[in-house]
Each structure stands twice: as structure tokens, then as C-alpha cells.
């Protein structure tokens, strides 16, 4: 009895911290519709800053709590600055751009924290006056946990009062519901949004600062907390602060008791709950269905044109040049070229689901990784050869996509994106925790191609054939009637339903196709590296795919290839530098701000703008 009560209190204490992060995320999302990946980074900075300020202030009760507040305020300012210089330019952009931009911020903050606080984990100070335990039902409960249990609801009450009892709160709630109308009523949203970011970041910073007596401070805090915070926000209902509280409590308790029952799968449990909630109640427990869904302006799609003679010639030339590459390039370049081919397929499959299918996926790495693991497991456990491995790869990925896709196609927009992310996290957690089968963190080693393909050149040719074939096949699908149905469903879902097309089934099928092709990429990848680790399934891999699509431009078929090329070469070049993440982040931010249509799309848009203008001038 006492033990379970203690466990219950532990759950509540961790729920408090989670609530602080998630409520800030939720408020920011509610008003600005921005899915802020950098929110976890703000949390991390809050922890580091609190640590530094505690050391700097005189030791004692006052010093500790003053440090917590100062750190939270500083993080609030940081959030406002990020909004001011970056995010306010993206309010009208599609989700992809916002997400990738905030991921750019994640990279920059990562390296900034590394430069300031170093790579070592830091053990934070204990809270003076709250550093012992009290006995409840005979069980020791840390005093600090009790303090957190009080702080959570107190902050909830404070935020609720600010939102519901002040003019500022009224304006925030109004803008949350209908931005355009709020503007027409004279509400200055630039100011409002910046202040919302301040509050949201402040809460994240507070959450991080309050964590320092409980958790070691490390550079992994940002992405660790963000996935869980997303789960909480989605379960609670995006934009709902009480919802975030309720959901944080559920997740906190789920973790506290889940550890007792299924110690291996606690992470999976949280995502499962989220998937179930999303399917049963898509707007979350306390969220409201959107009434005025003002979708951000659609990216204008260039009319799809089947290849003409000239394009065919160009494609043939590129393939011939690629085939000739081994004559001039060394092993090192061939490895890079193989990577580029693999990622071109990965990015093309992501572009297919997003551009043609109109479904934004934040977790496409799941299918890449499933492919890689599928092949590796066949080799490891069934003693299969490369051919069976390469067959198993798309099969495993396709099966995963079949399963997750069934849930995902029931949702749309950001909620769909969140569910894809959750799906990827489930797969990642499984690979990470199921030591006996997947090798856990150590991955699976020794997945090499047979002797006749061991040579870099030979393997490059295999990759070239498979990857070019995959991309051309995907292209065919885009131009097949199936592709037209998908695009129709993306642009006018009601019309498709009216003419009797089961759009959901088509989308589900598209999801599987995208998964299969990502799996093919994963299969080729694992044999080129000889090993696979859970990293292939993690958030950064998914985001890398998004960045490639973004670099290439979401609505162009050629895009993903150019994007994969640019990104892979860029990463290869940059990763030799010390602070390469920050540089990569800066490049991403630059592209998002300057060429939001991507490299290929940007050039196309330039041409477009010129013809547009001359059209209008001719008209006049």
C-alpha cells in the first residue's frame, strides 16, 4: 500500500515537470499553430542556466529559488527572441517549414550549450531546505518531490487565471481560435505572439530549472523531453492548458506504474495511449475541434508534366554519368555517392507521402529503420543472405506502414504528423529496449553483402540500379491514376468523396507505398554500412528526411534527389568541423527564410514570378 502510494507521488512529481514543458508548448501551438521542436531545447537551457545561476548566487534557500526564477525568465526572453527573429516570418508557411526551422534552432542551441557548458553531464545542486525525505506510510518520499507536486497545480492555476481573468488572456484565446478575425478587430498579433512565446518559453525554462535537483543535466535533455511533451500536448488537446495538466498526470502515473509492470516498454506505453486517444478523440481529451480551420496557404504546385524528350535525355545522361562515376572516383566518394542514392530514395518516398499524398509525416525514419532492421534481423537470426535481407527490408517497412497507416490516415494536418512521430518513437523505443532481439543500443553488426559485392564499386552499382529503379517506379505511381486520386484527395477531399472514391483507403495504400520505398532505402543502407543502430529510427533521422525534402522543394519530383544530394554532401563536409550542428542549423534557417520553396522550387518560383508578371502586364 505504502509503496504504491509512494509510486503514485513519484508519478505526480514527474508529471509536474512534464506539465510545465507541455503547457508552454500547448499555449504556443494554440495561438501560433507552430509545432515548436525547439521547446525541449528551451527546457534544457532552463536547466543549464539555473545550474549556473545557483552557483553564482549565494548558497541558500533564497539563492536556489531566485536562480530558478531568473533562469525561467531568461529562457522566456530567449523564446521571445527566437520568435522575433525567426518564427514570426513563418506563420503563414506550411507545417513542414515551421518544424524544420524550429529543428534548426534545436541544432544551434545544442552547439551553443556544448560550447558554454561542455559535453560532460552535470549533477545539479539539491534544493536547500528540501534535501531530505519524509516518511509517508513508512515509505521515504523526497521533500523536493512534494514541492513539485504543489508547484504543478499552482502554476496551472496561475496560467489559468492569466488566460481567463486578464484582457491579455482574452486576446490570446481569441487569437487561438481565429487569427484573421482577431486582426480585423485591431488586435496586434505580432506583439501578442511574441508575448505568448515569452510565456511558453518561460514555462519550459521553469520546468527545466526545477528539474536540476532530480535529474542530471545533459545535452540529451532537449530531444528526450520533446517527444514526451508532444505526447502530453496531443493527449490533452492542443492549446488546452488544463488538458496538458491532465495528460501530464496520466503519463506521469503511467510511467511510475508501468515501470513496475512492463519495465521494458514504458516509452511505448505513452505513445500507445496517445495513438488510442488520437483515434478515438482526435482533438485530445480537453481540446476543442477546430471550427475555423484556417489552413496556411497551400504551396502552389507546379503543374505535373510527364517527361518530354528533352527530360528523358537529361535523365538518361544523369544515369550514364552516375554509372561512369566509379571510373573517376575513389572509394571514399563512392561511399558518399551510395549514401546519396539511398537518401534520395528515402527523401523521394517522404516527398511522395507529403507532396502527392498531402500527409505530413514527422516520423518517416520508422520505415527507413524498419527496412534496415528487417534486413539485419534476417541475417542475424535467420541466417539469411543478402537477397532475403533485401526482400525483408521493404516487407518489414511495408508491414509497419500498414499497421501505423491504418491509424494515421484517420487524422489530418498536425495531428496526423504527431501520430506519425509517435509511431516512429514506438518503433525506436522497441529497437532501443528489446535488447535480446535488436541488440538495443549496441545495434546489430556484421550485416555485410556477399563477397562478390563487397567491393565498393560493385556495391555502388547495386545501389545505383536499385535506387534509380525505385525512384522511377515512384514517379510512375505519381503519374498513374492512383497518383491523380491522391492529389485530388489532397486538394479537394469532399469532391473525391462525392464521386464515390474511398479516399482513406487510397491514402492508406499510399502510406504503405511510401513505407515500402523507405524500407528499400533502409535495406540498401544497412548493407553499405554493415550495421544498424536505433539512431536510424530516431527523430533526427526523420527530420533529416524533412530537411532533404525541404531543400529540394516539396512539390517537385526532382526535388528530393537534389535535396538528398545537397544535404548529404553538406553534412559530410560540415561534420568535420567542431560546431557543425550550429552551422547546419544556420544553413537550414537560411534556406527556410530565403528560399522557402526549396532549391528546385525556388528556381521554379523565380521563373514563375517572371511569367506571372508578364502575364498580368499583358492583360492590362
Amino acid at each position: 500500500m505504502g509503496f504504491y502510494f509512494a509510486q503514485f507521488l513519484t508519478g505526480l512529481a514527474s508529471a509536474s515537470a512534464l506539465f510545465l514543458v507541455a503547457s508552454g508548448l500547448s499555449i504556443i501551438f494554440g495561438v501560433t499553430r507552430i509545432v515548436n521542436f525547439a521547446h525541449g531545447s528551451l527546457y534544457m537551457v532552463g536547466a543549464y542556466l539555473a545550474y549556473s545561476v545557483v552557483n553564482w548566487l549565494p548558497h541558500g534557500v533564497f539563492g536556489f529559488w531566485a536562480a530558478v526564477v531568473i533562469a525561467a525568465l531568461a529562457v522566456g526572453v530567449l523564446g521571445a527572441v527566437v520568435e522575433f527573429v525567426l518564427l514570426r516570418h513563418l506563420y503563414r508557411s506550411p507545417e513542414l517549414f515551421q518544424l524544420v526551422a524550429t529543428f534548426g534552432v534545436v541544432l544551434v542551441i545544442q552547439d551553443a550549450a556544448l560550447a558554454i557548458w561542455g559535453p560532460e553531464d552535470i549533477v545539479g545542486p539539491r534544493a536547500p531546505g528540501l534535501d531530505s525525505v519524509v516518511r509517508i506510510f513508512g515509505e521515504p518520499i523526497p521533500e523536493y518531490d512534494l514541492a513539485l507536486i504543489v508547484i504543478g497545480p499552482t502554476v496551472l492555476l496561475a496560467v489559468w487565471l492569466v488566460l481567463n481573468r486578464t484582457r491579455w488572456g482574452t486576446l490570446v484565446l481569441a487569437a487561438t481560435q481565429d487569427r484573421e478575425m482577431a486582426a480585423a478587430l485591431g488586435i496586434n498579433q505580432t506583439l501578442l505572439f511574441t508575448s505568448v512565446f515569452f510565456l511558453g518559453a518561460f514555462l519550459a525554462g521553469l520546468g527545466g530549472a526545477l528539474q536540476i535537483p532530480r535529474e542530471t543535466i545533459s545535452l540529451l535533455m532537449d530531444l528526450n523531453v520533446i517527444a514526451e511533451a508532444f505526447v502530453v500536448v496531443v493527449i490533452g488537446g492542443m492549446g488546452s492548458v488544463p488538458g496538458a495538466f491532465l495528460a501530464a498526470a496520466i503519463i506521469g502515473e503511467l510511467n511510475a506504474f508501468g515501470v513496475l509492470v512492463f519495465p521494458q516498454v514504458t516509452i511505448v506505453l505513452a505513445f500507445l495511449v496517445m495513438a488510442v486517444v488520437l483515434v478515438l478523440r482526435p482533438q485530445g481529451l480537453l481540446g476543442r475541434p477546430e471550427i475555423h480551420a484556417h489552413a496556411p496557404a497551400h504551396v502552389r504546385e507546379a503543374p505535373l508534366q510527364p517527361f518530354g524528350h528533352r527530360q528523358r535525355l537529361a535523365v538518361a545522361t544523369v544515369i550514364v554519368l552516375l554509372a561512369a562515376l566509379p571510373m573517376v572516383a575513389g572509394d571514399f566518394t563512392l561511399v558518399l555517392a551510395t549514401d546519396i542514392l539511398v537518401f534520395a530514395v528515402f527523401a523521394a518516398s517522404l516527398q511522395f507521402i507529403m507532396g502527392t499524398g498531402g500527409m505530413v509525416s514527422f516520423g518517416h525514419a520508422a520505415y527507413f529503420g524498419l527496412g534496415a532492421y528487417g534486413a539485419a534481423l534476417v541475417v542475424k537470426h535467420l541466417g539469411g543472405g543478402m537477397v532475403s535481407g533485401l526482400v525483408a527490408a521493404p516487407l518489414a517497412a511495408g508491414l509497419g506502414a500498414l499497421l501505423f497507416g491504418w491509424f494515421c490516415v484517420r487524422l489530418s494536418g498536425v495531428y496526423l504528423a504527431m501520430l506519425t512521430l509517435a509511431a516512429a518513437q514506438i518503433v525506436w523505443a522497441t529497437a532501443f529496449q528489446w535488447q535480446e532481439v535488436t541488440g538495443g543500443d549496441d545495434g546489430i553488426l556484421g550485416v555485410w553483402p556477399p563477397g562478390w559485392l563487397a567491393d565498393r564499386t560493385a556495391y555502388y552499382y547495386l545501389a545505383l540500379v536499385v535506387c534509380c529503379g525505385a525512384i522511377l517506379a515512384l514517379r510512375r505511381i505519381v503519374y498513374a491514376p492512383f497518383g491523380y486520386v491522391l492529389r485530388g484527395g489532397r486538394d479537394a477531399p469532399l469532391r473525391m468523396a462525392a464521386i464515390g472514391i474511398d479516399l482513406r483507403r487510397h491514402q492508406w495504400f499510399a502510406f504503405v507505398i511510401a513505407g515500402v520505398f523507405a524500407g528499400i532505402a533502409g535495406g540498401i543502407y544497412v548493407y553499405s554500412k554493415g550495421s544498424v543502430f536505433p539512431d536510424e529510427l530516431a527523430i533526427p533521422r526523420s527530420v533529416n528526411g524533412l530537411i532533404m525534402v525541404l531543400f529540394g522543394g516539396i512539390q517537385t519530383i526532382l526535388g528530393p534527389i537534389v535535396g538528398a544530394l545537397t544535404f548529404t554532401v553538406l553534412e559530410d563536409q560540415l561534420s568535420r568541423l567542431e560546431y557543425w550542428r550550429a552551422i547546419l542549423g544556420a544553413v537550414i534557417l537560411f534556406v527556410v527564410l530565403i528560399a522557402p520553396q526549396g532549391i528546385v522550387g525556388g528556381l521554379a518560383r523565380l521563373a514563375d514570378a517572371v511569367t506571372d508578371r508578364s502575364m498580368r502586364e499583358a492583360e492590362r
Partner: protein
Amino acid sequence: MLEVNGINAYYGRAHILHDVSLGVGGGEVVALLGRNGSGKTTTLKTIMQIVPPETGSVHFDGEAITSLATYKVCRKGIGYVPEDRRIFSNLSVAKNLEAGRLPARAGLAEWTEDKLFKLFPNLRERRGNLGHQLSGGEQQMLSIARTLMGNPKLLLLDEPSEGIAPVIVEQMVRTIAELKTQGLSILLSEQNLHFARLVADRAYILETGSIKFAGTLQELESRPEVRDAFLAV
């Protein structure tokens, strides 16, 4: 007071408004007539800069407001009541009004919640209700009241008589007359000529994004062929 000069507006590549020019004088009620899809809403949105015009200009009180942010246009003194009302449905009536409140304008009486409840008595007992609990007519009134809280000098009303019960329509006619006597200028869009006749001094007719007629309502009466060509009566 309001001068719209040769505006052209686009949605993407679709050219919606073609050289639209119109004006509203101080204390005047002007109707913008036209069939569904003729561009009335778009015209009001270009005035508010919700859809900024590609070319042409909008002046208010002699000052160019083209390419100002929407909220600044509102603060210059133009109030906008959209056709779908756009009530904040999860805020109470009182908070909807609060969201529209802007400082008083020099030389004009300030709208207060109490004055608005006198103008729209139905809203008074609904003060604590959430927006989505109101009927269509009440939502229309709240939408107008909310915009009046911003103390506008010019009111843009998009199809105020659409989709509400006949009694409420009559009340709307009286309200518009009342606002006019208080010195407010009004530009309202309408498909319903009958309603326009009851409230407006002058009218413009829009058809596929171009002005086809401009004049007083008496002039329009005397030209039934215009009326029949461009309006569904």
C-alpha cells in the same frame, strides 16, 4: 471618407477584382450589391487588407491604408463584420466584446458594453453564455456589437441580412438606421435588394469583380434592366 481606387485583387492566379473603384462619404450608408461570387466579400477584405490588392489604392480619411497590416486598418477606424460572423465560440459574450474593445476616438462617443446592450437587448441576458450557445441572429448581433467596441468611424458589414430570421432582419434595419443617426458611415454588401432599399443611400453593383452600376437607389429603381441583369431578384 473611404476612397477605393482601381483595385485589382487575386487569389493565387485567379484574378478576382478588376479595377474596382468606390467611395463612401461621411455619415453615408452605401450598399455593395451583387450575386453570389461576384466579389463583394473580396472587396471588403481588400479594404481591410486581409487580401491586399495587387494594384490600386485604398484611402481612408485622405490617408493611404493600402499595404497596412489589417490590425492597423482597424485601428484607423474601419470596423469589419464578416459574413460568417466569426464569433469566438468558446468565449463568453462579454469576452467577445472585450476582444473587440479599442480606445475611444477623439470627438466620438465611446461604445460601452451597456450602450451595446441597449442597442441589442437580446445580448444582455446572454452576457455569460459562450459564443456557440447563441442563435444565428444573436451571433450576428454579437459580431456587430463586438466590432462596434472598437469605436469605428466606418463599418463594413458583409451580408448582414443573410441567414437570419425575418424579425431579426427588421431589427437589423432599425439598428443600421440608428447607427447612421449616430454619425457612423456604413458600407454593406448585399444580395438582397429589398434590404438595401430599406437602409442604403447609394449602391454599387458588382458582377464578376467589376463595378457595373453606381448611383442612388432611386436611380437603380428607374433602371430595371440593370437590376435584372446583375441581381437575382
